[in-house]
């Protein structure tokens, strides 16, 4: 069982300092923090696609970065195949591990070096990790991954530069670069949100094909719940640095239990003008993560708020098989 778990996250926290002036540090005792990620736990199995959904500022991107140790956590642990990542101090060891963990960013216009050819961009991880022997081997791997992404014939693309490609092709190059090292764990942060609707699903299908081919574990970060439905097996819904609900995507979409999930799903527009839907319109906007509300963080906007919600923080507990929820309404 434990063999199957690729990523295990335990009580992960990340607080960002806020820069304050000199006098304020003298006057006030406490330094303000942004509670970007506050006590988040989940696991991702081999061959599994886990989604983190939520609105901007909920901490989903920070979580993705913490998992790859691109930033250091304030507290908590991240295990990669049983190995605790957060305690590795050896640069060499970390670098060897990075070969197994890759990330795809949102904006292919910024994530590719404009002065490198497509071949150099895709082959760079192989050279850094010293995976291939000689140019022939490298070329073969580059060609293979380009063919996987249906950029055929690859010879037509490898001598080009990023500015000569369309947005969809650029994002495919970013995907190729991540998959060239055959990663076991992949993070994609809104990989298709910059692309036009008509090419989105094509790029997604190719990406998912590669995830399947390499049996990778995949963390998909997005604000688009509707799209997550087509990609993820399980999702965690984040609000203000916490996972408020977690479970199989279809269960969550068809029967959201947390009031926030309910509101989020009812706010997602559908491509059908005749659809009759229950409208759960919640008021206001996400409070500041510097001073998150006490108790349940959603209580300031929750239509079902009770006295206990203002004081006691609900814990994320299993309510049904494989379904986790942090809400007093159901715990009562």
């Amino acid at each position, binding site marked *: 069982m434990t063999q199957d778990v690729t990523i295990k996250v335990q009580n992960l926290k990340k607080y960002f300092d806020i820069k304050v002036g000199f006098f304020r540090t003298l006057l006030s005792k406490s330094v303000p923090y942004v509670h970007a990620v506050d006590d988040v736990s989940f696991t991702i199995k081999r061959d599994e696609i886990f989604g983190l959904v939520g609105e901007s500022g909920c901490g989903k991107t920070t979580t993705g970065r913490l998992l790859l140790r691109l930033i250091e956590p304030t507290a908590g642990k991240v295990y990669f195949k049983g190995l605790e990542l957060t305690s590795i101090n050896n640069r060499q060891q970390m670098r060897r591990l990075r070969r197994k963990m890759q990330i795809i960013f949102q904006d292919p216009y910024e994530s590719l070096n404009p002065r490198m050819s497509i071949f150099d961009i895709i082959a760079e991880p192989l050279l850094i990790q010293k995976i291939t022997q000689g140019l022939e081997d490298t070329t073969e791997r580059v060609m293979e991954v380009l063919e996987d992404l249906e950029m055929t014939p690859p010879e037509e693309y490898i001598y080009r530069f990023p500015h000569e490609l369309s947005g969809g092709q650029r994002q495919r190059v970013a995907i190729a670069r991540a998959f060239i090292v055959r990663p076991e764990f992949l993070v994609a942060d809104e990989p298709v949100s910059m692309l036009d609707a008509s090419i989105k699903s094509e790029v997604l299908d190719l990406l998912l094909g590669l995830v399947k081919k390499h049996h990778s574990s995949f963390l998909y970060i997005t604000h688009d719940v509707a799209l997550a439905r087509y990609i993820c097996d399980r999702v965690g819904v984040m609000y203000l640095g916490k996972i408020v609900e977690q479970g199989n995507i279809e269960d969550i979409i068809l029967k959201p239990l947390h009031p926030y999930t309910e509101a989020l799903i009812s706010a997602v527009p559908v491509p059908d003008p005749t659809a009759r839907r229950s409208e759960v319109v919640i008021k206001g906007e*996400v409070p500041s993560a510097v001073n998150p509300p006490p108790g349940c963080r959603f209580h300031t906007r929750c239509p079902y708020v009770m006295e206990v919600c203002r004081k006691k923080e609900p814990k994320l507990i299993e309510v049904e098989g494989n379904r986790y929820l942090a809400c007093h309404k159901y715990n009562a």
Partner: protein
Amino acid sequence: MALLEIRDLKTYFHTMRGYVKAVDDISLELNKGVSLGLAGESGCGKTTTALSILRLLPWNGEILSGKILFDGVDIVELSSEQFRRQFRWKRISAIFQGAMNALHPTIHIGNQIAEAIVTHENVSKKEALERTAKLLDLVGIGASRIDRYPHELSGGMKQRTVIAMALACNPDFIIADEPTTALDVIVAAQVLKAMKELQHKLNLSMMFISHDLSMLAKVCNKIAIMYAGKIVEYGDVVSIFKEPLHPYTEKLIGAFPSILGQKRKLSSIHGFPPDLLDPPPGCRFHARCQYAMDICRTTEPKMTDAQGIEHFVACHLKGV
């Protein structure tokens, strides 16, 4: 009579490499109280259409031919000064993408809205501020926030401020170009709901411009689909979504995921839109169309209403 009528409009951009045919021969009609959705992917000419109506094209953009009749007046013929005095903001106003980030950071929002009123109408500052207070109530910000600075407001409130500004001079027609793209899902739903209510209450005509068909399905009565500078399909919102006639429309609707009903496979369209410097002959979609016939490569299809239900399509397959 239609409030806005666009006839054979051509707006091109001069570039070093030639003319970019951003809007190429489009015609549209919009009646009072109707909200029209102009949909299409990036670079299809939706924003250029809006800028042509507002006479706000950049220096290298030019309306080559065609008419834009607003309440019977051809606004293409007017001098920019005449247009500014008679139409812009008084009759036609706009909410632009990201406009909430263009609010002046050191001026109270109330003064910013009042400024628009004082500039366009012969009223005193005091009267303008009284009207501003009413506007802020109307859009759901509340008159008490009249002396707030933009940084004191959340994203949704700033967008509502911009909506209040668009309503400042009681226009007949508002163009909203991607009004909610910068907002989060829940806030976007709140703002859209407010806009829809205002549209009904004030009997406004609106043009929503967006790439997001799901959003347009929620707020529009009519939909026009643009592709590569042309309108390829136009009709009632239900008829467009339920019985799309153009292969592009069909694929585009299928590309949008839905959280309702059964999960179905998302469609995609192979390839990318043509270069508008040198658009292909015939139907502009033929290179990506799975039903392309010989005639599609040579002859441009005309907008026709084959079924006689005000559902127009420009496609050789369906139109004739």
